[in-house]
């Protein structure tokens, strides 16, 4: 059924890495295209409109941040970044530019597959937008009624916690940087020194939603970068 085929583009200058990614992801329903540099990657992405892009952060002819920003100019396809231990600042810049998730080299094919699957799943559900409820296990977020229920019982959240939760849950599976969360929650509000309290607000929200606040089911910590809702 060629119509339902998924197309993934991998942009990496190392042929061995492209081979590994291709081998891990290609099957009867998925085809993997390859590009060896940023220029070719952007050209192929424009011509083939892939459903997901696997992008190396250290390309010879352009940094991952610029490539991501250029892609984001016209596509919402998830971008999974491959990084070889780049600095935290570089990772943050990449997410702020619109990257969705990253794996650090050396990664295992299983890890890569899991991340790609999660990103594709999110992209599919996002396509069916207009949903008024986000349901994850026994957590129900009712966007219309501005209400949160956990295991059937209502959970009281403050306005800031509500905005944080919505910002995270509507981008499920995607890493949200501290800056992105801050912009989503405090836009139009009196800032004060809110930004430095962001992490504390998340910790309070997590204590309301998670049975064990240090083994979360919903809100995961990505050190130095931000948070991710869902696995």
């Amino acid at each position, binding site marked *: 059924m060629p119509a339902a085929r998924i197309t993934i583009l991998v942009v990496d200058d190392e042929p061995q890495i492209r081979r590994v990614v291709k081998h891990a992801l290609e099957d009867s329903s998925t085809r993997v295209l390859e590009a060896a540099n940023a220029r070719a990657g952007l050209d192929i992405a424009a011509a083939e409109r892939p459903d997901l892009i696997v992008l190396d952060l250290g390309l010879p002819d352009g940094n991952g941040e610029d490539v991501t920003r250029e892609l984001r100019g016209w596509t919402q396809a998830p971008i999974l970044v491959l990084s070889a231990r780049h600095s935290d600042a570089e990772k943050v810049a990449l997410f702020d530019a619109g990257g969705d998730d990253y794996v650090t080299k*050396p990664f295992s*094919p299983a890890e890569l597959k899991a991340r790609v699957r999660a990103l594709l799943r999110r992209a599919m559900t996002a396509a069916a937008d207009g949903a008024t409820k986000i349901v994850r296990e026994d957590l129900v977020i009712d966007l219309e009624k501005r209400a949160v229920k956990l295991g059937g019982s209502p959970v009281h959240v403050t306005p800031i916690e509500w905005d944080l939760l919505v910002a995270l849950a509507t981008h499920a599976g995607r890493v949200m940087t501290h800056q992105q969360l801050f912009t989503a929650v405090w836009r139009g509000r009196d800032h004060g020194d809110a930004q430095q309290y962001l992490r504390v607000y998340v*910790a309070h929200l997590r204590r309301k939603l998670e049975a064990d606040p240090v083994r979360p089911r919903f809100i995961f910590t990505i050190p130095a970068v931000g948070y991710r809702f869902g696995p």
Partner: protein
Amino acid sequence: MSNKRPPQDSATKIALTGIAIGAVVFLLVDWFVLPPVHTLVIANPLDWLLLLPFSVISIVVAQYVQHKREAARLEALREVDRLKDALLASVSHDLRTPLTTIKALAHELGALGDERSQIIEEQADRLTHLVTGLLDLSRLSAGAMPVNVQLNAVDDLLTAALQDTESQAAGHALITELPRDGTMLVGRFDLALSVRILVNLIENAIKYSEPGTAIRLRARRQQEKLLLSVEDSGPGVPTGEEERIFTPFYRPAGARPDAGSAGLGLAIARLMAEGQGGAVTYERDAGGSTFTLELPAADLRAE
């Protein structure tokens, strides 16, 4: 660095050499030039006036030349250090591509049923660990590790540390203990670095205690400090070795050479803690070992 002599030492050396050269010049001029020639007698007192400045000038010139040479030597050493760091960074970066390929191919072989593939994967992971450790140690000892101190919740620290360790804790129960009254512990620290310290301490506890035993993670506040303890029920560090375990490449006496560690974890943990105003300490009691990460605590403004 062990190959750099302490500066006071080389300064003394330069001074002594200068004085020695000055004295030799003094004697040579006296012997060959000042009448009566070929004696050390100075007949004319005015000759002293000639000789003294002459000797002083030779001392100063000798010292200056020596000093220049010493500076050049130190600069050369610094250059070697820089090269070493650049080399380490580039090697660590470039090793990641082949390691990814090796892991992936081992994984594919494993899918075909070859059990040896698992060993290949494990060894690739071990190599990654070692390369990461060497790079960290090099950055830390050069004072080049970026530190980003922010207001952070201890919940985040424990969450991220457990995310990284729980899957490899095979057989160990990781028990977490937060303040019972539900107090939210917060502090000013670098989250990413602190997570790596805690992960190091937990991995250490997993390695050096029997499977099936519990590892306790306890977070509490003591005055201006946050204390994060990792308690295991292993045999502990031998008496007298409690400080040496924090030196790089330390290995317990009698440990198998392939105990799966290069002895970098604790050295790195301590340097990373000190870099953000914290500490890592060790204590032992009848029940086992306790490693504690201390970080600066913070107070939340009443809202």
